[in-house]
């Protein structure tokens, strides 16, 4: 069993490339490239309760497939799969700007909550994405927006090192009302000082322990 990403992923590239690695392998989850074959399951997730804090879902399965097919090559769109198990969610790195060494983490959704129970799937998925961003692409900053009522996600992102940088007032129109977006950001040094140790700790909690029996 591996206990983290492959060694090749840890080494920074000499020249960052915008070609998305097709697979990022962790201990509990694998990130693999999103394809049109994922349209049915991702469309179902986007219509689920847990996606209520995200932008509106595609109207139909065909729209979802068209949306996936139209993703630009500069976006890294991943499915989150349990190792040896099913796909449970999705996660993206978008707006990748190598000149300013920044990118946005986006479209983070655990669609199959039951399958993720008891496993540090969300944490390790984010850890793999951060490693890609900070170690492989050499970025200085990751940022993102979280809908203000998504309290669990805000708490989770801040615990893992994100800092609140501002508030975009009435930024989303959801459930018939305008709501604010909370702007979060994480610098490379904060990732190394805060995010990485905390992520490692949470991942360790998911490992079976010797019972002494």
């Amino acid at each position, binding site marked *: 069993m591996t206990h983290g990403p492959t060694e090749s992923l840890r080494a920074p590239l000499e020249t960052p490339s915008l070609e998305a690695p097709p697979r990022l392998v962790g201990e509990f989850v694998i990130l693999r490239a999103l394809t049109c074959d994922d349209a049915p399951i991702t469309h179902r997730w986007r219509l689920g*309760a847990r996606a209520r804090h995200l932008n509106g879902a595609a109207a139909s399965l065909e729209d979802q497939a068209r949306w996936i097919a139209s993703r630009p090559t500069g976006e890294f769109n991943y499915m989150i799969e349990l190792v040896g198990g099913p796909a449970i969610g999705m996660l993206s790195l978008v707006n990748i700007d190598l000149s300013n060494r920044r990118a946005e983490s986006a479209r983070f959704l655990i669609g199959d909550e039951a399958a993720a*129970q*008891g496993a*540090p799937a969300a944490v390790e998925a984010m850890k793999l994405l951060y490693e890609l961003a900070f170690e492989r692409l050499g970025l200085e900053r990751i940022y993102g927006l979280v809908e203000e009522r998504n309290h669990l996600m805000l708490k989770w992102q801040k615990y893992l090192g994100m800092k609140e940088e501002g508030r975009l007032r009435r930024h989303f129109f959801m459930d018939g009302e305008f709501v604010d977006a909370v702007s979060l950001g994480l610098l490379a040094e904060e990732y190394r000082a805060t995010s990485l140790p905390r992520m490692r700790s*949470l991942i*360790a909690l998911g490992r079976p322990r010797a019972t002494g029996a």
Partner: protein
Amino acid sequence: MAGRRDEVLRIIFGALESLNQELDEDARVEVGPSTPLFGPEASLDSLSLVSVIVDVETALTLKWDTPISLTDDRAMSREISPFDDVGALTDYVLELLAELAPA
């Protein structure tokens, strides 16, 4: 000691009740002394676990006026995870308090 244990349990129950306010009805967790928390046999995902950790750490720090971290190396290296269930977390917090804020 029973008084301190009751106080810690109240804090953990409060964190679980706060979590339940964020979850859909069918995803809510039982609030009790043997509620499983996190690990191969448990029922929380990592988003919910972090919510509990943050709320418990915040409440402990306010109550005992000393910073308390529940996820340092010491917690990770224990044979039985402090996050197996509410009882294990209570025991772990009491152990930390005995060192950081002796009664």
